């Protein structure tokens, strides 16, 4: 598809829009439909589209495989880490209310934001990893 000028031209602005939409779904998730999982899939779709149009090598330069692997781990750690912080603050596991000293609802906002971010990072990384594995065969 390297020679296909129309695809290359059209996909460039489209990828930006997809990434923006992913971010919208990500941050909209704590007070409406959406959330980390859906956002992660959309974000990964943008990366995969880039890989399909411009080739796997180019895609690996933008999103290195090592980064993807670390991302898988970091997302889970972020999620579980929020729970552990609330444990250390004396509340039950994943009790976000404890995250803010003055107002539990602030803590809940912060908690769900961080947890959804963790989900988003892991899902993006996992989807990208699966794409790299299948597209690269040897990788």
């Amino acid at each position, binding site marked *: 598809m390297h020679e296909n000028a129309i695809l290359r031209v059209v996909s460039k602005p489209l990828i930006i829009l997809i990434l923006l939409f992913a971010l919208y779904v990500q941050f909209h998730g704590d007070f409406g439909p959406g959330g980390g999982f859906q956002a992660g899939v959309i974000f990964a779709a943008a990366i995969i589209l880039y890989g399909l149009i411009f080739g796997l090598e180019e895609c690996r330069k933008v999103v290195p495989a090592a980064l993807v692997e670390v991302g898988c781990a970091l997302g889970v750690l972020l999620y579980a880490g929020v729970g552990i912080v609330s444990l250390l603050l004396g509340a*039950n596991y994943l009790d976000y209310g404890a995250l803010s000293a003055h107002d539990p609802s602030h803590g809940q906002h912060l908690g769900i934001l961080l947890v959804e971010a963790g989900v988003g990072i892991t899902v993006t990384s996992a989807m990208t990893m699966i794409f790299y594995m299948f597209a690269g065969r040897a990788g």
Partner: protein
Amino acid sequence: MTQHFPAIQVVLPLVSAPLCLLLRNVHLVHTFAVGVAWGCLFVSGSLLKEVLTSGVIKYELGGWAAPWGIEYRVDIANAYVLVIVSTIAAVVLPFGRGARDVTRVRGQEYLFYSAFLLCLTGLLGITITGDAFNVFVFLEISSLSAYTLVAMGQGRRALIAAYAYLVLGTIGGTFLLIGIGFMYEMTGTLNMEDLTARLPPVMGTRTIMVSFAFIVIGTSIKLAVFPLHQWLPNAYTYAPGMVSAFLSATATKVSYYVLVRVLFTLFGVAFVFDTLHLHYLLVPFSLAAMFVGSLAAIHQDDIKRLLAYSSVAQIGYMTLGLSTGTVAGLTGGLVHLFNHALMKGGLFLVVACVGFKVGCNRIDSYAGLGRRMPLTMAAFVVGGLSLIGVPATVGFVSKWYLIAAVLEQGWYLVAFLVLLSSLLAVVYVWRIVEIAYLKPPPEGREIQEAPLSMLLPTWALIGATIYFGFATDLTVGVARAAAEQLFGHGP
């Protein structure tokens, strides 16, 4: 901090799995994973102690109250299973050399430990949670990582075995999910305690009947109950040695726990055995498992496959105990759960020791090993005697309680068949003993004893089969208390 132990039990391995991915260095990751497993054992041990002294522990995740929020609920039955799972993990993980030959690509061993800890997370999670949907979620976590672990075995056949395991395991998991979905449809709740209260009025409806069938068959696939055991022999045969030991001692045991929880806590003895007569189905299948499993084991050339078929037979003993529908039978089943975890885990570790030194799992290659690897083969003999059920081993203890429970029901023929199937175990254990001790070793190749780092975990499990053969008050006492609690809780 102790009041948070139910959460820590699952969170500790869950957080450690991605950390393994970041640490990367083999030795670092190995030490770290062993530490985590021992930490889990400490947590589950304290949970069991607390449950025995001060009753059921409830833990509300996120601080949300039970019917809406997810609740971890620890009673004697699941504290007992938690201890079994974490003990096996703590003993098997230090068996580090087994991991060195697991991944085809050098420098990716950390992925193995990561998958192992995820599998542990899933198994502990299934056991501890009091939420039916959570059971499915953790089941998928443990299963997906188990497929990965099996696929890390040597040779291409490990991939095929893992794929078959994946297909059947996914069907089992999906059946469980469909069943849980139907229950939710009828009751509007997923909390198990809430379900026990809300199920009785709708118990007779077709939806609940179908849901019951889906759940029982789904867990039976995971448990490898006789006609649904096809995934098991290959998965255990081609998985890396320590993975076979870990999965055989934990994964099917946790599925057994799920089955017990569904039959006794959710649906209740009266519905399962008096209305549906499940024992008409379970008893013949259990007996068939004992005979088909043992007969198949006799005809194997590969020792891991032999042990795998023997597992099919041993699962038959456990489901037989359950299908009596009495406290005595369930006690027998739960005792055998623990005992079989010890002996089968130990035997698979013996095989891994031999595989490490000899490089082959064929029974022929055991010729003369009785002299070349005396300690390893002695462990095999003790484990084998326990499989048969010789007195002074744990195998005797569990068979004693199972046969007593069967006789209590007046099922004399069944008791006789249990004894008869033990004779089949004599045949397949003796085959190995005969080859190892009476055949001369092959010329030319000098084989030495397995290293201490592998012998210690092996003998820890095998030694425990003797220890618990005498000190039965811990296993039988806890199992009976668990069985009584499961009966008292049912509607």
